[in-house]
């Protein structure tokens, strides 16, 4: 089981499995036999049917062949160039003959080049003007904006102060009116209380007076009743009149 887990033997098993199903292609066998036959070099002490071997082709042979082919191509090219080269002509005639064609060929290019240069200069000048105008307008816009901001801020402060003053005045007025209303309400409450107290005292006095009078009258009636219903030989009790409330309150 340990061997099964050894990676080396797992890899070995994989290698063996890969080559297990391989068969030799027929063309390889034939090519091998053909090469062996080509290299046949019979020896005196070997069997006649023994296939000989000759030396392997040198690895430098392709390089030599390639170098020889390259040299031949270079030589052929040189010879072809030499043979096909035109003969020298008179420079003046050549210049005179070529001048119109050269001028006609160069004129559009030169014109286009000049136009292109002018366009570039104009573009540079326009770019510079654009930058300068942009900077000036930016500075002017910034100044105007600062000025407007200062004016707006000052006006805003004045309006705010005025509004605050009005607000304070309105608050004072409302506070004074509230105090007046509260004072009036307290006064009315106090007056009502005093009036109620007076009425209550008067009512109580009236009730006491009436209660006392009624009690005196009841007492007299009771005394008269007792006097009329007195039996023979019973002396009349002496009763003293009870002073009334007004008599008791006399000084």
């Amino acid at each position, binding site marked *: 089981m340990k061997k099964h887990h050894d990676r080396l*033997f797992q*890899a*070995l098993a994989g290698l063996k499995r*890969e080559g297990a199903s*391989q068969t030799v*292609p027929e063309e390889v066998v034939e090519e091998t036999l053909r090469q062996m036959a080509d*290299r046949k070099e019979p020896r005196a002490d070997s069997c006649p049917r023994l296939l000989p071997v000759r030396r392997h082709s040198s690895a430098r042979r392709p390089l030599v062949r390639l170098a020889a082919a390259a040299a031949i191509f270079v030589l052929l090219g040189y010879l072809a160039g030499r043979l096909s080269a035109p003969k020298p002509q008179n420079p003046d005639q050549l210049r005179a003959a070529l001048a119109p064609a050269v001028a006609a060929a160069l004129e559009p290019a030169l014109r286009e080049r000049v136009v292109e240069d002018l366009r570039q200069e104009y573009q540079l000048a326009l770019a510079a003007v654009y930058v300068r105008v942009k900077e000036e307008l930016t500075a002017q816009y910034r100044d105007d904006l600062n000025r407007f901001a200062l004016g707006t801020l000052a006006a805003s402060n004045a309006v705010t102060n005025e509004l605050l003053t009005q607000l304070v005045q309105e608050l004072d007025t409302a506070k004074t009116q509230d105090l007046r209303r509260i004072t009036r309400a307290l006064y009315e409450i106090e007056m009502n209380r005093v009036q109620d107290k007076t009425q209550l005292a008067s009512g109580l006095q009236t009730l006491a007076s009436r209660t006392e009078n009624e009690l005196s009258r009841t007492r007299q009636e009771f005394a008269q009743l007792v006097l009329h219903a007195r039996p023979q030989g019973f002396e009349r009790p002496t009763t003293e009149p009870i002073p009334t409330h007004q008599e008791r309150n006399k000084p």
Partner: protein
Amino acid sequence: MQVQDWQTIVSEHGPLVWRTAYRLLAHHADTADCFQETFLAAVQIAQRQRVRNVSGLLVHLATTRAIDRLRQRGRQEHCRTEAGACRTTGQNHDPAAEAQAQELAGRLREAIGRLPEQEAKVFCLRYLNEMSYRQIARELKIGISAVGVALYRAKVRLREALDATPTEEDEVQDEEAS
């Protein structure tokens, strides 16, 4: 035994040579080149000396050529393993396990290509061609103890390369084989 008929030898031992080379190279064209070079070298050797063990000689030559090509690949940093060539033929139908096995096999090939030549030969002859220590020693013309040392070093290097741990059973198997 003198070599009598190379056509018969190719037909008899060709599959063994092909499998030996293909296991290490996993590339059809490289294997074909290695196949041809092996038999051409065998012919040269047979002309110089008597060949007692044709199979051993062919396996040795195929292994040597395949390792040379592996080393060339390593120097060129160009692995030409064919995409379909690494398809395993085992009973494992799990794609993940199959991919893992292919990756392990590829890493083992690269590691063998980086081994010293003698150790790589000994390792391949022992574990891929299942030759005994004595046969390996006779083919490589070295001592049996040298075979054991080279095999041990090769396994250590390969395990380091594959990031695996050595097992005791492996050593027991080596002792039995020696």
